[in-house]
């Protein structure tokens, strides 16, 4: 290290005298400065969105325990990483391994908790009804047969008869229960009895087409072209037949048709361009001094002259479904009306829309948005809640709500008592308590106070599967026209979740990156032997990054979990 070579970068291990810093130290601090701006941008975005929100911002909706544990874990890892660095300074390799290993383990546990939290949200359904009631819950699993009848699943996972559909199936199915063909699904799809399908060659998507083909296959139906698919790519060539009428639709045939269709477009474009050019030459020759816009008025393509050179170019391919069966279509990517459904890839399906309600086990009722809208219009919030669709149509939710009102009245009274009856001093129940039933409250109301939830129950949110208390969640069948907006608790649900996932996701990526770099140093015993100071410098620099990641979390935790 001591010999002076001219093309060697100096100040890698020893600090430069006048600045007192090594290169990597300056580098990492600069990098952290830009990270400050990155997370600063995200935080200011968070505040902006929260201040700007024209809907009730979800406050304290995340389960606190996982976040709290993660905070502890990160603080611990911050301590161990600085210990690991100190052990290198003390030249204790094994102790370094121990502390660094702990740090990496902490990172792994942190990410594991994140996965648990994310997973709970990705399976949790939120629905905003047309009257701005917000329902939370889990979509029931079920099965839909080829006629579009919905079945619940029994304990063995087989379709059990749906209560609402009993009449239908008796008349149509008769004794053929054993041969029933069905698709298992979550009951939130659009069920569409389809007779004809027309594919848009410009837009069709491989995945969507495959989805339709597999659905048809599992329902024992076939999608076939109802006309010959043929294209003539230029006026003097023979037509190319992609598929004859009656042949089954395949992705390959559609792709071939698309390629040919593009050629017809190209041919027609070239012919028309040539004609337009010719017209402009004539116009400029006749009228050389006229400005461009004046000449443009006299330009007309001689369609009769070019028609023989044009070829037919149809971008829509039609097909039949035989026998007609009920397809399941994702409501987020389908625009359905009574007689037709248009998927996002412009595939148009015609037939009949079958009742496509969503079956939800409710574990949260939130009227705060409804109340906000009512107040904007000058309507009394309490009466608006009374008129809401869910209270009118679901007796169980209604019963819970009555109990909730009692609870709030008690709370108000208690708060008044705490203030020694001084109405002015007394606080009222917070509007988020008043107009919102959480899953814990619903369990309490449903079990008449019998079920006592522990702090670890519902670690990452309400669970519908095994828990004994899940039976208290009311079931509801939501007609599709009542649903204004629905989403899992993903970034799509609202901007709070969007910013939550964005910031914590980016933070998680930082954790992974930092852990990889720190973990790498555990595999550098040779460097420790040869140049321990250099390794210590590297660990210090990576440690600075790690502390910064911890520092970001220190702000993230209160902002996302507690506020």
């Amino acid at each position: 290290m001591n010999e002076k070579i001219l093309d060697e970068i100096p100040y890698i291990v020893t600090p430069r005298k006048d600045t007192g810093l090594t290169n990597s130290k300056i580098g990492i601090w600069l990098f952290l400065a830009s990270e400050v701006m990155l997370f600063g941008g995200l935080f200011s975005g968070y505040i902006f969105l929260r201040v700007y929100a024209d809907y009730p911002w979800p406050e304290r909706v995340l389960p606190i325990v996982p976040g709290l544990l993660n905070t502890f874990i990160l603080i611990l890892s911050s301590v161990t990483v600085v210990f690991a660095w100190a052990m290198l300074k003390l030249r204790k390799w094994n102790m370094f391994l121990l502390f660094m290993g702990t740090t990496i383990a902490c990172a792994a546990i942190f990410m594991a908790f994140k996965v648990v939290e994310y997973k709970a949200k990705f399976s949790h359904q939120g629905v905003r009804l047309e009257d701005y009631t917000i329902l939370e819950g889990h979509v029931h699993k079920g099965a839909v047969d080829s006629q579009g009848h919905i079945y619940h699943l029994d304990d063995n996972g087989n379709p059990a008869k749906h209560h609402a559909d009993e009449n239908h199936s008796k008349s149509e199915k008769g004794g053929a229960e054993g041969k029933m063909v069905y698709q298992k699904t979550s009951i939130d799809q659009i069920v569409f009895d389809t007779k004809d399908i027309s594919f848009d060659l410009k837009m069709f998507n491989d995945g969507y087409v495959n989805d339709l083909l597999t659905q048809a296959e599992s329902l024992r139906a076939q999608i076939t072209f109802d006309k010959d698919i043929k294209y003539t790519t230029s006026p003097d060539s023979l037509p190319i037949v992609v598929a004859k009428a009656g042949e089954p639709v395949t992705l390959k045939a559609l792709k071939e048709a698309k390629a040919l269709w593009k050629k017809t477009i190209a041919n027609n474009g070239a012919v028309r361009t040539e004609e337009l050019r010719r017209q402009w030459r004539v116009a400029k020759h006749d009228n050389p001094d006229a400005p461009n816009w004046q000449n443009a008025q006299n330009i007309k393509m001689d369609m009769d002259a070019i028609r023989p050179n044009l070829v037919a170019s149809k971008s829509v391919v039609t097909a039949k479904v035989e026998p007609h069966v009920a397809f399941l279509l994702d409501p987020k990517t389908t625009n359905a009306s009574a007689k037709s459904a248009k998927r996002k890839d412009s595939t148009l399906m015609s037939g009949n829309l079958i009742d496509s309600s969503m079956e939800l086990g409710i574990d949260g009722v939130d009227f705060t948005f409804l109340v906000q809208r009512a107040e904007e219009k000058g309507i009394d919030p309490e009466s608006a809640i009374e008129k809401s669709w869910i209270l009118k149509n679901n007796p169980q939710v209604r019963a819970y709500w009555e109990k909730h009102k009692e609870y709030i009245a008690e709370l108000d009274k208690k708060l008044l008592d705490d203030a020694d009856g001084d109405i002015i001093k007394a606080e009222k129940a917070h509007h988020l308590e008043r107009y919102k039933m959480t899953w814990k409250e619903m369990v309490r109301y449903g079990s008449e106070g019998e079920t006592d939830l522990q702090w670890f129950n519902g670690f990452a949110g309400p669970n519908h599967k095994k828990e004994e208390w899940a039976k208290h969640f009311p079931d509801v069948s939501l007609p599709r026209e009542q649903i204004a907006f629905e989403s899992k608790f993903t970034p799509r649900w609202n901007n709070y979740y969007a910013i939550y996932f964005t910031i914590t996701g980016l933070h998680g990526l930082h954790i992974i990156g930092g852990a990889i770099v720190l973990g790498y140093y555990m595999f550098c015993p040779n460097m420790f032997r040869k140049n321990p100071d250099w390794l210590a410098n590297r660990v210090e620099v990576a440690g600075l990054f790690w502390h910064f990641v911890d520092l970001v979390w220190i702000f993230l935790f209160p902002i996302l979990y507690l506020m």
Partner: protein
Amino acid sequence: MAGDSPAEIKKALKFYGLIGAILFIGTITTVAVAVVPWMDVGARGFSTGDLILGLLIASVKASLVMYIFMHLNHEKKLIYLFYGMAGFFALCLFFITRMAFEDPIHYSGFGHGEPVIEEKVEKH
């Protein structure tokens, strides 16, 4: 770097442990302020009081991490300059949030008691 001699480093280790403990306690306090009713400051539920207290504790924790764990207490002026610049420009960035109020199509919503700006303007 807190001195390079083994003795000094050993002494520093205890200090790091202490700081870690303080961070733990700070975290528990933050949560307690948020969820334990009698520790709730300000109005019932989440309010400005909780906001200020929560961010204050977080800032103290963050400063401890920066100052002790990240050795900012032994760092050169240049590093402070970099960090100061980042801090200042991040503050400029937070000025963006002010704009949320300045936007005339902004609806001053439920529970956010900021006055609507247009009214102020009309008075003059």
